[in-house]
């Protein structure tokens, strides 16, 4: 017998109370609802307000700017680079919404291991934690969120949901992308004495441009 078969034989012997598939699924759903019933309420009833409060809280530490539309994005990026004393060079995630914009004097450069700024688009946001959601794909390579020192992310406010459970409900029955990333603040580590320090390997700064 293979390791696989031996293992499954042992598990079958040790799990005599296994239910039938329908009952299992019903039970899994009930358990998820039971957990939902004890969640702490969101601080603000407005999802965008709650998202901003969480993501800018000290322990998450991102910055947020609100923009009236996609067309204001290049300006906001340019201003950010200027304020940070960085060159007007960014690696643009190949998202059609970004590529369609007029970037003026901001240059689009390839993503490299020492890229200073990358600009991306989040697929959604989670209000309860201030998390950004990304699905990998041809227009959303994973590494844009991890290689640069500064990660600027555009997020449409209408895509913000209250909780993780709302996200999973939305995704029910849809194919799973290769990577689902929830990004909550800039990279940090508490590995030295439990003290938080930013920019361990991923971005040191996370700047969110909310498009409302």
């Amino acid at each position, binding site marked *: 017998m293979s390791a696989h078969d031996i293992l499954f034989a042992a598990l079958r012997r*040790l799990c005599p109370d296994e*239910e039938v598939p329908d009952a299992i699924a019903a039970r899994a759903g009930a358990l998820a609802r039971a957990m939902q019933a*004890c969640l702490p309420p969101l601080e603000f009833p407005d999802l965008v307000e709650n998202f901003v409060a969480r993501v800018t809280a000290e*322990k998450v530490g991102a910055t947020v700017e609100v923009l009236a539309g996609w067309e204001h994005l290049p300006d906001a990026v340019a201003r950010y680079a200027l304020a940070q004393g960085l060159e007007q060079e960014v690696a643009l995630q190949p998202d059609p919404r970004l590529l369609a914009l007029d970037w003026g004097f901001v240059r689009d450069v390839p993503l490299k291991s020492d890229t200073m700024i990358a600009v991306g688009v989040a697929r959604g946001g989670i209000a309860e934690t201030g998390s950004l959601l990304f699905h990998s794909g041809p227009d959303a390579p994973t590494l844009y969120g991890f290689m640069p020192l500064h990660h600027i992310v555009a997020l449409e406010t209408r895509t913000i949901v209250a909780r993780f459970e709302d996200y999973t409900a939305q995704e029910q029955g849809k194919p*799973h992308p290769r990577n689902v990333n929830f990004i909550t603040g800039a990279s940090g*580590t508490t590995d030295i004495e*439990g003290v938080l320090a930013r920019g361990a390997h991923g971005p040191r700064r996370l700047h969110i441009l909310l498009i409302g």
Partner: protein
Amino acid sequence: MNADRGELAGTFKERARKALGDAHLRVALDRTTGNARTKRAAAVAAWPDFDRARAAAAAIKDHALQNFPYYLEQFERNALASGARLHWARDAKEACAAVIKICRETRAKTVTRSKSMLGEEIGLPHALAEAGVRRVETDLAEHIIQLAGETPSHIIWPAAHRTREDVSKLFEKHHRDHLLLTEVEAMVDSARRELRDDFFSADVGISGANFLVAETGAICTITNEGNAELTTTPPRVHIVTAGIEKIVATTEHALQLTRVLVRSATGADLTQYTTFHCGPKRAGDLDGPEEFHIVLVDHGRTQMLEDMPEMLRCLRCGACLNHCVVYRKIGGHAYGGAYPGPMGSAITPVFDGLEPSRDLPHACTLNGHCKQVCPVDIPLPTILRDWRAKSYRQGFESRAVRLGLALWAFIASKPALYRAALAVALPLLRRRGKDGWISALPFAPGWTESRDFPAPPEKTFLARIASGEEA
């Protein structure tokens, strides 16, 4: 397998004594666990129903374990469909062999690794070294202990035994730019520079998994630094090593467990990076591994399912370590296994056998703080006491202990004899006292090495009651 390592040499008591004498270690432990306790307390205070959530989390894990074969099979089916390749390992040896085989087939010279306690448990670092593969640990703490040539001393903060001053010295010595740094930020920066190139030149990236999601076949990693994604995305091959108990039913369950896990570990609402990895690079993808392997490891899990199923709920959050008075005094290396603290004492006997590790379940006051803070309500004190009972039944306890307990039970079960014995013994003991205190006890020298013992009274409570004294 690590018995030759300096910090793991000797018996439990020898290692504990060494740790207790190490004032520097105490500083490091106090800082890390103190910070962790403060942050967890703040996170829990902001969640009024946290205790109910712990019960709900335990039920979610129990559900997966109750239907273990069903969910594991579902995971297998979905993972295969995503293009992942699965390898099943019954023990540490088979697990390491599976990883090494993939490395050989890839002709890997360098592997990057993001922290995985399972890797430590199965001795993967050692196996990679034997196979001549260069291993680069990318988690900051793992990087620190790799430079120091040590093993992790905490499951969340592997370098919990190291102060910032230690890290500064290590980096000055080993990093290419040999800078003497005093600020934590600058040290983090130095590690970033040092490890940057390895992320992109490694042939294989190895990660663990916090969850195996049955409904999708994805594996979930949870990190703060972003090193997991940088470890697993650029190399041609991504290998996941995971214990089979990481199985959960759905993405929703995984995220719900993450909520309690992260709060218990670092006090954050969510770690910076929570990622579900599902299969290799797809058509049109600009990045991602070409091969995606998952090594699924039993190594005692089926045994635990039989003997202490609650232990398989463990999310490896480390809260039980941070709140354990014993761990806080002796640190992780004294425990001698991959996992220290209460959860380590509960599972190390499964891996190493009870006889050589029987000190672990005994070196505990059974105060229950670990259970109280555990996000999945694992009855750790009960599990540790059950190990004691097993150790007693199997005759591992010393003759002196067995005789002492038997004698006490014999006398205490004969009330008249008990009264008579006390009537003789107490005055004798009382005579050893000076100013009301005894400074050397004949039967328990361990007590009076560091504490005084009050001299007993002339007569017992019951003797006084029997002689008609009312109050």
